[in-house]
């Protein structure tokens, strides 16, 4: 620590917001204290009523689903009769799909471990806290770096024949380059131009996770061979 940190004085005079107060806060702490022009509402009724409505909507929707669709129940468990394919619950089918491409230690331990680790470090990684739009600084160094990482990932996943990861990787990189200079482009490109690097990475992950889960759920039949959903994958 080098000396006393610089302090900000925050003041509010709006009677709807807070009583008049002056507070000294360190500039690097809570952004909340910098919002001094906010309107406040009574929690009861405004928030409580909304919460009750939310509760009712969810319970009614679930009840309707429970009336319309029955939970599956197959024959009694039989260790001697292996169904083909034997599928895990849907939220693990992405992982099971990975097993098709990678050795079990990679698909079952390494990749899920990396995913959990990446999720945990999100709020502690500087880039997630400070990143501006990806091409905000022109991108003389960004462009070759993205191209190199994309090529490396494509070759790596392609070598295992894992196209559900390799192809979205290419597509994501394509979208990233389409965003370059998008500030002057059409609506879609302007939207893309605002996306930061951490957001690109998360979007890449979500697309792949969704794709793997959908393939595992709907497109895998006996022997984990590719089948169409209408020929009995489910």
């Amino acid at each position, binding site marked *: 620590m080098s000396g006393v940190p610089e302090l900000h004085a925050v003041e509010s005079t709006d009677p709807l917001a807070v009583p008049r107060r002056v507070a000294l806060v360190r500039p690097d702490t809570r952004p909340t204290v910098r919002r001094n022009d906010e309107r406040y509402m009574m929690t009861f009724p405004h928030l409580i009523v909304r919460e009750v409505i939310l509760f009712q909507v969810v319970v009614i929707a679930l009840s309707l689903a429970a009336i319309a669709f029955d939970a599956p129940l197959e*024959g009694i468990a039989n260790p001697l009769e292996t169904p083909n394919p034997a599928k895990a619950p849907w939220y693990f089918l992405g992982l099971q799909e990975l097993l098709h491409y990678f050795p079990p230690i990679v698909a079952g331990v390494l990749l899920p471990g990396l995913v959990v680790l990446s999720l945990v470090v999100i*709020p502690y990684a500087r880039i997630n806290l400070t990143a501006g739009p990806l091409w905000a600084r022109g991108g003389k160094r960004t462009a070759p770096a993205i191209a190199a990482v994309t090529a490396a990932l494509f070759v790596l996943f392609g070598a295992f024949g894992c196209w559900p990861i390799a192809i979205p990787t290419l597509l994501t990189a394509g979208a990233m380059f389409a965003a370059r200079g998008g500030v002057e482009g059409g609506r879609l490109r302007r939207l893309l131009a605002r996306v930061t690097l951490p957001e690109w990475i998360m979007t890449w992950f979500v697309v792949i996770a969704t794709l793997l889960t959908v393939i595992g759920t709907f497109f895998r039949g006996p022997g984990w061979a590719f089948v169409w959903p209408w020929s009995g994958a489910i």
Partner: protein
Amino acid sequence: MSAERTSIADWLRGSAVYRSIVRHGTADTNRNRSLMIFENLFLHVHPVKVREKTLRFSHTYWLGGVTLVSSIVLIATGILLMFYYHPSVPQAYRDMKELNYVVDNGLFLRNLHRWAAHLMVFAAFLHMLRVFYHRAYRPPRQFNWVVGIVLLIVTLFLSYTGYLLPWDQLAFWGVSVGTNMAKEAPLVGEKIRFLLLGGNVVSENALLRFYVLHCVVLPVAFLLFLSVHIWRIRKDGGVQGPPTDVDDPRHEEAP
């Protein structure tokens, strides 16, 4: 019609017993509305006033709320299901048949538990994405994000341990596939699998262990982390919506 009802309601609210339970009057003044929040054990996780912006649908899409409501539905239906369930082979499977064909509304109960479980996993995942894209994990909410990840993993394990309990083919082989994956972890994989299953294969022991995990261990862990999660939202100044803060690099027009 309403005149008489109002008077009965007023008489009830004025009675000594009612006033001993709820110490404030009708919530028709801001004072009583405040008292309603901070004199109530369950409501006092809320502040008396909330930022107007946080009430907007697009602020959070209520995704954490949907996850929470699903978990309440799951606890309620789960307790009822426990009355009809024996974690033993083959009685567990027979109990499913009983629920489906004998118990009044048993099928409805089981359906509700099943679909609420799917909804909870799905809504928790969407909630995580919402928080990420809104950058709501930034200081001071870093640790609450981590608590959220723990809750997501506990939710997945809750769902997964529940998957075995019907003891049908779907349950048995779904769990066999998953626990075979655990085996691949270096050094400890085999031991973890043995600990989880109470043996080397999915058997009656595994059913009992999954039952205890599903009905006691994981729900307790879930409620503990959930308490921390919700308490910290309050401590960090309420739910965080889309970034419009002055220090968000994406909003260059801000001062």
